Every structure is written in C-alpha cells, then in structure tokens.
C-alpha cells in the first residue's frame, strides 16, 4: 500500500499518546475477518430487495402456459408454451414457464436457488403506482398503519451497538421507503461516495487522527466511531472500479447491475451489510409492450444471474427478494400493452428455498375468478417477507414489522 510510510510516521508521531492499540484495527493485515459480525446474535442473511418499479407484468414473466384463459386474454402478447415453435417460454414446471427474455435466470431455477411465488401481492386494491408502492414498502395493507418502511422497522428492531454504518444501503439518490424508519440507512449512488475525502493519503491521515480522538470515547459514540473508521477502511480497500466478480459473472451498467455489483463487493468485504435496496424498471408497459418489456427483462435476468454466479460461495447467507407494486391486467389492451392489474410474482433467491420453481395456489384466469379483470391474490407479500425474516434473519419482531398482520407461512423455504 502506497501510503504505508506516512501512516508509520504518524504512529511514531503520536506514539506518546498510546494510540497504537486503537490503530490496530485500521492496520490491514490485522483486520478481523468478520469485522462486524456480532457473535451469536446477528449472523442472519443479507437481504437484497429489488423493486421492479411501474408494475411488472408477472403473467408474461412467469407464464401460466397451462391455463388456456391466458392465451384467450392475450392473443397478441401471450408467450407461447414451451412445446410451441419459435420464441416460447422455458419450462419451469408442467404449468409455468419462464419468459425467454429471462433465460439467464433459468439456470438459477434449475439449481434450485430460486422460487417464484405467483398470484402474490398486496391485499390492498389500489391500482395507483404511488399508493400501491407506498402500501407495500410500508408493509401495510392500506392507507393506515405506520408511515415508516417494513425493512426500516426490521432494522430498527434488530439494531445493536457497533452495527456497521454500512448496515443498510439504498442504491439510489433517495432512500427507498422500505428503509425509512432506520435513521442510519444510507442512500448511496456508489460506495465510492463513502469516504471522508477523495485524497487517499489525506483520508488515511484523517482516519488515524480520528482514531486517536475517539480512543477513550464512551459508548455508543466510541463504538460508532470504531465501526465507522473500520467501514471507511474496508470501503477504501474494495476499489469498486477494479472489482472482479467471481465465476466470470458480468454485471452491466444499469442501476440494477451497479447496485448488485456493489452489494456483492460489500458482502465479500465483510463490511457489515445487512440490507440493500435496489430499483429496476420502468415496467409501466401500457403500450408497445413487446418492444418495451424485453430489454427490461433481459437486464433483470442477466444481472440477477451475474449476482447469483458472483455470490455462489456466499448464497448460504444471502437472500434476494424481488417485488413489484402490482401485476398487470390479464386482458391485453388495444395498444399492444397491458394496464394496471393486481396479482404478481415475488421471486426469492437463496440456497435454502424450497426445491420447487413456482409456489402458487393458482386462482385461475377464468373470468369468474378474476378480480375486476385482474389475477387474484392467493399469497400475501407480507407472508413471503415474514417467512424470509423469521427463517433467514436471527431475530426480528414481526408484530412491529407488519403490524396487524397474522403471519401464515407459504412454504418458500424447505
């Protein structure tokens, strides 16, 4: 490291004030491997929450090719069954197929690392983007209930002294509502923004000086200072521009690709990350869906696959969940698009998911079973999230995270 010399000089200069012991944690070779893992109590999965903004057309992503009504409602836009000729769905099971534009994800399903919960969503009937997103991110079933986010409340309920300042990140200019309520959540466009100054030598000197300043500081401030200085050091050593994903995984430069790449880098660096939120889309395909949707799906599938491959050795303690505010109307519209609907798909990726590509109590697309022309909800998204929190994080308070909701496991995990 090029700045070793000035550090050494600094140590000599301040040796008189016995800063040496505190400097130890900044010394790279002495960095504890699990810098932020609090013994026994934390240790849950890192949660990566991807939100497909705009209302993703779940029926054309995880295609119910076994339901004839699907093809009746979508003569133009329907994705052909796996046994058809030409562009067709990739078989997931004998009823559901994966949109061909998402073929990069097929391997994840095949290896049993992903399951899709279909006919899933919020019992709230709003078809407004703003309202539906708001309800889901707050973790409620309507306008009432807490105004903070479900993930923010989970993080607040499980916060501990010495938590990493990088514990929760929204890869965005503005913090996602899901994370609201946890005051230490960061909205970052890039981890490269997490520094005291861009000048590396200066940053190094500053960190060392601050270490001395906080050496005898009482908890919780002293603990926070220690955690912050460690996080700064960790991030400084990541150098995201030179990050090399494992297994030849390739992220693209989309918001999703950048977010997943940086999430992967932070997880590998043991930076104490516990929750990351990433947005993708605009999935609001009212017109020309056959042109607008494919690139969105490809970006989605390829970056998720990249994350999967890159994180293969870490999938034991990472859970990815993908949601959208609602699915789209079953019947295609006259403009080659689909309008706002209701039921959708929630994807869960983890080493521990049930060995079943699609989990669904399929309500059917028969007109009698539709709800104002929309796919009915047979799985509450809060049950998926509750299952993740209760099975994959060490401890949480579901009553606080989803107030008023009675948790009924769906069977996302084995």
């Amino acid at each position, binding site marked *: 490291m090029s700045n070793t010399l000035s550090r050494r000089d*600094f140590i000599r200069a301040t040796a008189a004030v016995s800063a040496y012991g505190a400097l130890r944690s900044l010394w790279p070779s002495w960095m504890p491997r699990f810098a932020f893992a609090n013994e026994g109590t934390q240790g849950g999965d890192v949660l990566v929450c991807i939100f497909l903004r705009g209302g993703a057309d779940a029926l054309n992503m995880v295609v119910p090719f076994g339901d004839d009504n699907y093809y009746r409602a979508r003569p133009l836009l329907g994705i052909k069954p796996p046994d058809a000729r030409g562009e067709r769905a990739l078989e997931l099971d004998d009823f559901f197929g994966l949109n061909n534009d998402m073929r990069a994800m097929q391997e994840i399903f095949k290896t049993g690392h992903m399951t899709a919960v279909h006919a899933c969503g919020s019992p709230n009937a709003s078809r407004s983007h703003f309202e539906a997103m708001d309800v889901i991110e707050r973790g409620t079933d309507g306008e009432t209930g807490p105004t903070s986010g479900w993930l923010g409340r989970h993080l607040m309920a499980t916060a501990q002294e010495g938590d990493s300042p990088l514990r929760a990140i929204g890869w965005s200019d503005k913090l996602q509502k899901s994370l609201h309520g946890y*005051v230490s959540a960061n909205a970052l466009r890039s981890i490269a923004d997490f520094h005291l100054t861009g000048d590396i030598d200066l940053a190094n*000197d500053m960190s060392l*000086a601050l270490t*001395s300043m906080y050496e005898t500081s009482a908890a*919780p*401030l002293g603990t*926070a200072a220690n955690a912050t200085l460690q996080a700064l050091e960790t991030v400084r050593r990541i150098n995201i521009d030179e990050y090399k994903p494992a297994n030849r995984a390739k992220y693209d430069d989309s918001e999703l690709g950048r977010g997943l790449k940086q999430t992967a880098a932070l997880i590998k660096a043991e930076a104490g990350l516990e929750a990351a939120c990433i947005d993708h889309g605009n999935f609001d395909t009212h017109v020309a869906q056959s042109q607008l949707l494919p690139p969105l799906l490809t970006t989605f599938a390829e970056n998720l696959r990249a994350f999967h491959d890159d994180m293969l050795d870490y999938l034991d303690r990472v859970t990815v969940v993908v949601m959208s505010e609602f699915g789209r109307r079953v019947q295609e519209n006259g403009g080659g698009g689909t309008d706002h609907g209701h039921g959708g798909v929630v994807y869960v990726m983890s080493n521990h998911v049930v060995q079943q590509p699609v989990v669904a109590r399929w309500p059917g697309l028969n007109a009698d079973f539709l709800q104002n022309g929309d796919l009915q909800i047979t799985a509450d998204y809060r049950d998926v999230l509750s299952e993740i929190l209760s099975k994959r994080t060490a401890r949480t308070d579901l009553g606080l995270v989803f107030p008023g909701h009675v948790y009924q496991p769906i069977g996302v995990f084995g």
Partner: protein
Amino acid sequence: MSVSRRAFLGALLGTVAVSGCSQAVDRLTQPKLPDNLLVPSGADRHPTAHLLNRATYGPRPGQVADVERVGKERWLRRQLDYDSINDKEVDWKLRRFDSLQMRSEDLMSFGRNQTFIVNELVQATILRAVYSKRELFEVMVGFWSDHFSINHFKDTDTVIFLKTIDDRDVIRRHALSKFGDLLKASAHSPAMLHYLDNTVNEKSHPNENYAREIMELHTLGVDGGYTETDIQEVARCLTGWSISGRGRFTFREEWHDDGKKVVLGQEIPAGGGQKDGDKVLDILINHPSTARFVSTKLVRRFVADDPPPNMIDACVQTWQATGGDIKQILFTLFTHPDFEQAPPKLKRPYELLLSILRTTNAHYDGDDGLIDWLVRLGHRPFGWVTPDGFPDVADIWANNLFGYWQLERAALHNELSGVDLDIWDIAKHVGVDDKADKMIDFFGRMFYNRTLNPTEEAAIKGFYSDSGRFSQDLSKDTNRRRMLDTLMILIAGPAFQYR
C-alpha cells in the same frame, strides 16, 4: 449590536426590505464578531458553556463570556421572559417566506405536492434557530414539535400544509405557556387532527388513532394508567372533532357519539356534545401521569438519555405547584444543583448543523439546500414518520457518525448550500491566523469551550504537522489547506458531537 447600528438598520430596513432587497437585509442583520472575542480556557467543561449548550442550539462566538458576565440565572430569567426580547432582525429575515403568515384556505389552495410550502417552514425554522435571540424559546419550539410531532409526508393531502399553522398558532404561541393551553391548542389543530385521523372519527366509524396517541404520546405515557377501554371512550368523546373544507377546526355534531362515557374512571354524562372532548382534555391535563411523563421527556432532552429520577421529581413538583407552567418547570430544571453534573448528550443531526453554524458565526441565507443534508442525516424537521417524534437518545443516532463527519467537513470547506462559513475571518479577527499552534489552540477552545486535553492536542497537532511536513507558517497556501483539514478533525472529535 450597537445602538447606532440598530438605528441605522431600522432606517434602512424601511426602504430596503420593502423594496425586496432581502439579500441586503440578510447581510446587515448578520451578527458581528465581538471586538474582544473571549473563549473559555479551563481544562473542564465550562458551566456556562454547558448551560448554553443545553438551553440553546449552541453558544455563538463570545456568548459564554457574555452570559458569564450577566450571570447564568439572570440570563435564564431573561430567556424565559422571551416576549421582552426584541427579535426584529429575525422577523425581517422571515419576511420572504409568504407561506408562514397564510390562512389555511390559502395554504391549501396551491394544490398537492407543493414542496415550497413544507420547505419554507423548515427553512424558517433553521433561520430562527440560528439567529433568534429567543434562544431557549426556539429550543422549546423544537421540543414541542417533537412532542406533538406531525409528519409533513403523511400523505399528499393538502391538509398537511396546515402544519405551518400548527407551528404558528399552537407550538410557537404556547411553547412557554402552560402545558394545558398547549395541549388544548394542539387538540384543535387541523394538521394534528388530520395527521392522527381524528378528522374521520365519527360515531358510525370510530377512529381511535388520535385518542390513543393523545394519551400514549402527548400526556399520560404508555404506562400512564389507561386501558384499551379508555382509548375507545376517549375516541367516542372526540367523535366529530374535525376540520372544515377551509381547513379550520370544526365540530361535526352529526358525527358525535352523544352517549354517556367513562374516561379514566370519570363519568362524562350523555348530551355533552363538543364539551365531551374538552372534559377529556381537562382530565388528561390534570392527571398526575401527565406531569411525570412530560417532565421525564424534558429531563431527557436537557439532562441525560437516562433521566435522573430526582430531577424528574423536582420538575413534577414545580408542575404541580404551578399548574404545569412550562417556564417555571424549566427554571427548576436548569437551576437544579445536579444540572451541572449532567453527562454528555449526543447532538442529533439537526442540532449538530445548528451548532456548527452558530459556533462559527456562519451566515445562512435561508436557502433550501440544507434540507437535503438534514434528509440525508435522517433529521429533517417535521419529517419523522411516526407520531412519537424524533428519538432523543444517543443509541439511535450514534451510528450516523459518518454523516456527522461529512457534514462537518463540508461546513468547514464552506460547501454548504446557502451558508457562508469563513473560518479565516474569525482567525484573523482574533489574530491567530499566523501560526498553526495558535490557531489550533484558539479553535480548540472555541469549539470545545475548554482547552484541548493532551490526547486531543497530540492528535490534532500531530495531524497538522505530519512529521514536520507542514510548518507553523500559515501564510503558505498548502499550510492553510492543511489547517482546514486539521480543524475538520477538531470539529469531528467527540467533544463537539456532544451538547
């Protein structure tokens, strides 16, 4: 400010401000550094600085010496008699914010998502906190804004703009009056009734949200001795307490449940109409749990995250003797013999920002750019999502330390939008801008209100010199840049993060 300057200002304001030159007003009303700027020099926390750190948003340059001269108690009495403090300069600064004085129907007439209305209230709040001479009053406005918290982002309904009126007619009008008056005003506040859903509390569909929170958060506290039945009964009493289309308080008789109720053991006979709610307020105001719950919060705010029971008892006693007179309670609190031993109290991000601006005599022009910083740090006034108000304990905020450091660095490098902070101006004014050690010693005392301890001095001076790479001579640009980074370490040190 000297008399002649004030007279000059008055004459000038008559012409300049009205013609819209708010920039000129702004600059003219900027406090000047005292000619003889004195900073504390003891090894320990200075008792006057301690009082100012708690009872104001942080001492301004020279203020510790000023208050020391007049005496702490006399200063406190004057601050409590806030009406008698002339605050014209701040009033002039606020003139540009039209929305502050608007009527409810005007505020609501702009339509949804008018960020300028909510932002103006935040900008005005910061301006007042930085510049008002009614310093303790402003701190109490902050306290009550948390206690009777209303979230600007509850929904997109224009009713939320009425927080501006709540701030003006509830919080500011009663911040230092009797608690009962404050509670009654709040219970009639359209923004509060909307925020906690009492506007839709009607006999056929009771909504208990406000009924619960007025007991849990505003008066008795969660362990204050009420039951779920009490909540239902209070909600019944408050049915029909709603707002009109023009955004004014109105009682909707046809929504009111006029049957008999029993609240906390007291019978409220049938047929009381709007008076049912008044009776509830009286019961809550006079309930012993209220005095204890609110006193505890005051002691937590001004003394310690774990409020010492004896100080709470003293406040409760004064509360009971004076019928909840907030001024008297504060007097008891700040003159309590144990106040001086109060442990360190972490600044919350908003308080940190204000203390930086005040300590350095920075000029803030009222720009909305600071709001982004406060959002980032999780502490935008009126932005706490739940009705319990921003948390007031270090455990919640300490983990934002990286954000604290970023804010401090940006401030010292004069990178805050709408802020002009010139550290060299102060250094030159007091004559320490020539030698590095002199400058460090002075600003150490200015930021910490004591001399640096040996650890701090070694860390700061060691950082500056970097093993002799930077000499004492501050006429060199490289050394001046290094000094700015050095002062960043100083202001980012633990002592400045505490009030």
